[in-house]
């Protein structure tokens, strides 16, 4: 039976536990995507990030997207975790695990989920620069937003 799961956490993300949530005998492929905080963005050194969320809406949004991905891509299972609070450079801020009978659906669903999460779920990041300057990132509103990567 396909299942979808999502959560918000305050501490480090246990990626092995996220992966374990999608283990299924019907799966022939499992993908684990881990989003980590970059130490450098658009040439500026970042000391760390802090994430904030409208928690009830964000948790519901992640759960709905995980369920939608499971249905739309025919996954055997899907698990999503986003970390809140301070996240040091190189640590995981988000993890997505998908399992499917074949790899194509598992890869595509993970990519689709990450896109939708970044566009829709009420979670915000605050970048702390090397000089201590803190900047909340609000994409359409911020002229300082880095140019999206190709294909994004």
């Amino acid at each position: 039976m396909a299942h979808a799961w999502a959560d918000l956490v305050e501490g480090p993300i246990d990626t092995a536990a996220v992966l374990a949530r999608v283990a299924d005998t019907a799966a022939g492929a499992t993908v684990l995507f881990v989003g980590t905080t970059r130490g450098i963005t658009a040439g500026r050194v970042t000391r760390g990030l802090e994430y904030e969320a409208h928690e009830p809406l964000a948790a519901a949004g992640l759960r709905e997207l995980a369920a939608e991905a499971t249905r739309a891509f025919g996954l055997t299972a899907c698990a999503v975790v986003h970390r809140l609070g301070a996240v040091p450079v190189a640590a995981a801020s988000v993890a997505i695990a998908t399992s499917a009978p074949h790899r194509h659906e598992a890869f595509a669903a993970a990519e689709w989920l990450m896109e939708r999460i970044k566009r829709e779920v009420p979670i915000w990041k605050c970048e702390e620069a090397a000089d201590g300057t803190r900047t909340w990132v609000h994409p359409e509103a911020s002229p300082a937003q880095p140019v999206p990567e190709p294909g994004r």
Partner: protein
Amino acid sequence: MSLFAGMAEAAGCRRLEVAWTAGTVADLRAQLARLRPAIAGLLAKSTIALDGRYAADAATVIPPVSGG
């Protein structure tokens, strides 16, 4: 009214009391912008969430999101 992220920073607070018992969301936006002119620019690009999908009795400003 709950404020988050850059919206809370611009307003200087995480909650604003607004007398809004009738009228449209546009009226609410206009009141907020009058109350805190510093948030007007970001407010224009934000969504207003009202009690509906979650148990709450207040409105929330959702500025453009940046998780991940």
